[in-house]
């Protein structure tokens, strides 16, 4: 597969954003007439790599060769000039223009100083028929067609601009399985014509169905490029997650024997809860005092499930039963009053209130559950804040300091304190150890175990399987926005979780 027909060669690409190394020395080679899939979890650097290639971002270091010649991609126009064109995840066309207009917008053929509409319509029709096997009326508005057709039009436009390289960034995320089949047929046709395609997707099945080669990125680092046929699913996942099978140690220790205290005890029961397009309906019985893990790759629906339980997103299906009270949906304030707490995944956007003090951040949830009129007296606020600053060992000279001056780990502890102050019975922790240093990580893990031993039920979500294995009594495995399996007790091992994610596994909730 190597040799002279390498179309695009990226070597040692580095890109740094303030505070984050998005790409560190990434290599990427594209061969003529191949479909090359880019894999990696969210934040692995896929989008950054694509944005570098399409001129949205400029590289800090490294070289890009196009057919052997070094090029510099300084803008999106430059990328198009080099024959690299992209179809982004969201269709970015104009729904209020016709199909033909959308294909030729910005580069309309002219005749005697005005736009040559006949040629536009004729060429658009020819382009769609010959290259994509799509027979539609190109004079109709784009909005009159389905999302799948719109996607095809976007591809047609990209194919027409492109001279050999086409980038498809998650084109399948809004398509159903038939439409995906149609898209793949088109991709194979383009490939046969000699087009080199870079394909990004989250869906494992699609990777194996369509790609020739796979490049895996993790945390902005290049992991490797592999022939799709020779790479087993389980290997692919362990490369994405960053764990090899042989060196996995099984460190499962029970957090006391809290696992199955009393099955009869009705605490929180979710029946057929779901939201269209976000997460398939699921049943979960949350038992008091357990640590329940949600495992799965990022984007598998873990966070979405948690948000549904806490009422951040409104469920459009199913019911939530809390101690015999039944709700068809729930909202954050109600959830807090029912004794729920939620440490969100994105600490900066969803967690901290940057400009406010540590004290104000800690009492916020407690105060909102008490309402506007019952304002906690300052003495009480200080008392609560100081208690948790001491208990959680938050490193700060004063509780009146702004929270955004703290380190990530300490910010996370403040968010934890915010929920502990409400005296919760169910605490949802979504990636509580993300983006914080190792010391703080182990402190937070210890804290989670301690809380569980004190009888607080915990839903634990983490990308680090080791953490899940360490503390969970029960793990639900999610894939492609669905809960696919349940692991209990001794079954909770890293290899088991990975295997379940890879293979799909049994039928959760069907028995």
């Amino acid at each position, binding site marked *: 597969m190597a040799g002279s027909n390498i179309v695009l060669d990226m070597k040692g690409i580095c890109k740094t954003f303030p505070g984050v190394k998005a790409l560190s020395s990434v290599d990427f080679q594209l061969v003529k007439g191949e479909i090359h899939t880019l894999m990696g979890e969210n934040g692995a650097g896929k989008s950054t790599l694509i944005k570098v290639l399409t001129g949205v971002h400029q590289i800090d270091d490294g070289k890009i060769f196009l057919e052997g010649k070094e090029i510099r991609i300084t803008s999106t126009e430059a990328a198009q000039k080099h024959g690299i064109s992209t179809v982004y995840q969201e269709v970015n066309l104009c729904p209020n223009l016709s199909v033909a207009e959308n294909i030729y917008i910005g580069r309309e053929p002219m005749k005697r100083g005005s736009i040559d509409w006949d040629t536009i319509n004729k060429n658009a029709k020819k382009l769609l028929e010959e290259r994509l096997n799509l027979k539609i009326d190109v004079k109709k508005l784009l909005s009159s067609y389905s999302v799948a057709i719109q996607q095809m039009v976007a591809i047609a436009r990209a194919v027409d601009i492109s001279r050999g390289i086409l980038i498809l960034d998650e084109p399948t995320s809004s398509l159903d399985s038939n439409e995906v089949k149609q898209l793949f047929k088109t991709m194979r046709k383009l490939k046969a014509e000699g087009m080199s395609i870079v394909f990004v997707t989250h869906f494992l099945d699609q990777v194996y169905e369509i790609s020739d080669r796979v490049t895996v990125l993790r945390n902005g680092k290049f992991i490797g490029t592999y022939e799709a046929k020779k790479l087993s699913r389980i290997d692919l996942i362990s490369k994405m997650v960053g764990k090899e099978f042989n060196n996995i140690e099984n460190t499962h220790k029970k957090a006391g024997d809290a696992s199955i205290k009393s099955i009869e005890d009705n605490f929180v029961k979710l029946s057929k809860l779901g939201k269209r397009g976000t997460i398939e309906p699921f049943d979960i019985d949350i038992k008091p005092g357990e640590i329940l893990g949600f495992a799965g790759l990022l984007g598998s629906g873990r966070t979405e499930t948690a948000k549904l339980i806490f009422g951040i997103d409104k469920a459009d299906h199913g019911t939530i039963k809390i101690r015999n009270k039944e709700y068809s949906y729930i909202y*954050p*304030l109600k*959830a807090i009053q029912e004794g729920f707490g*939620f440490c969100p995944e994105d600490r900066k*956007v*969803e967690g901290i209130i940057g400009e406010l003090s540590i004290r104000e951040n800690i009492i*916020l949830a407690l105060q909102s559950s008490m309402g506007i009129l019952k304002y906690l007296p300052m003495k009480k606020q200080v008392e609560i804040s100081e208690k948790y600053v001491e208990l959680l060992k938050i490193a700060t000279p004063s509780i009146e300091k702004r929270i955004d001056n703290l380190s990530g780990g300490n910010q996370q502890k403040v968010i934890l304190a915010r929920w502990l102050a409400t005296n919760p019975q169910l605490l949802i922790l979504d990636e509580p150890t993300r983006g914080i240093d190792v010391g703080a990580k182990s402190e937070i893990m210890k804290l989670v175990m301690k809380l569980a031993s004190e009888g607080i039920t915990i839903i634990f979500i983490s990308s680090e399987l080791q953490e899940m294995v360490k503390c969970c009594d029960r793990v639900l495995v999610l894939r492609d926005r669905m809960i696919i399996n349940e692991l209990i007790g001794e079954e909770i091992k890293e290899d088991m979780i990975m295997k379940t994610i890879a293979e799909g596994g049994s039928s959760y909730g069907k028995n």
Partner: protein
Amino acid sequence: MEKTKNNNVFSKLYNMPIFWPLICLICIILINFIINPGFLKIEMKDGHLFGSLIDILNRAAPLILISLGMTIVIAVQGIDISVGSIIAISACVSATVIVSNGPVSLAIAAGIFVGLLCGIWNGFLVAYIGVQPMVGTLILYIVGRGIAQLITDGKILTFTNKSFIFLGTGYLLIPIPVYIAIAVTLIMYFIIRKTSLGLFVEAIGVNREASRFSGINSKRVIFALYAICGLLAGLAGLIICSNIKSADANNAGQWLELDAILSVVIGGTSMSGGRFYLGGTVVGALFIQSLTTTIYSIGVPPEVTLVVKAIVVITVVLIQSPIFRKMLNRNKLFRNYKTKKVAEV
């Protein structure tokens, strides 16, 4: 020892958000005093206090009211540019009641109530429909004066009802509007800072998403803020029309929304929301009113008054900006460095 303590007190004062607005206010009063030494004099006549300072307080009262409302709206990253029009509507409604010989209490209640209604309309658009605050309040900004004209049939209503006029021109040692402004400021302070509303407002202003995760119903809070802002504008409308004994749909409260926004900014509240300072706003409003009075009293030609005002405001805003102060300091350091070098040579 003594000196460091003094330094501490000074730096504490220096870091207080109200420091710069206060300095500005003091400066403009000093300038006036230099130009006209009688400026600070307060006399007792017929049991009333008279003097330029009292006059400024009196005239600033409506501006203080709407600036307070504007502060809390700006704190949640909003804005209400319709307050001037709300003033016109409320003035016309209450004047209509008075002219048709209705009771004074009804006139006052009606004026405040239409202000509240307007605020509710703004709050509904911004909080529940999700219209951009500027666009949402622009609607009432435009249509408000039209509504006011419809109410008065396009005429300027004048009246002589003594007890209604008392509201805007009366005296109990000091003018009645000053009492109203003080009372409203205290009530606002109580509502905002002695309940958890202030905390919620600041939380929403800094990070609306995270506030939602903490269980705050931001829509309801934002709605309430616009309603309060409208109510205060209604009250300001009452004072203004009672003060000039007439209601003019076209001119009542004109440009006042801009002065209010300026007062908020000078008072130290950022236009991007978050932390807000009611005290700073009051000082800011007093500053704007002093500036206007000064420009008139030192006889700036009418055609350049707005330019003078603009220059002063730009200067004040620049002085307040931490980035600009840093630049100034750097220049000073640079100069010191240069002189040092010269000395060495």
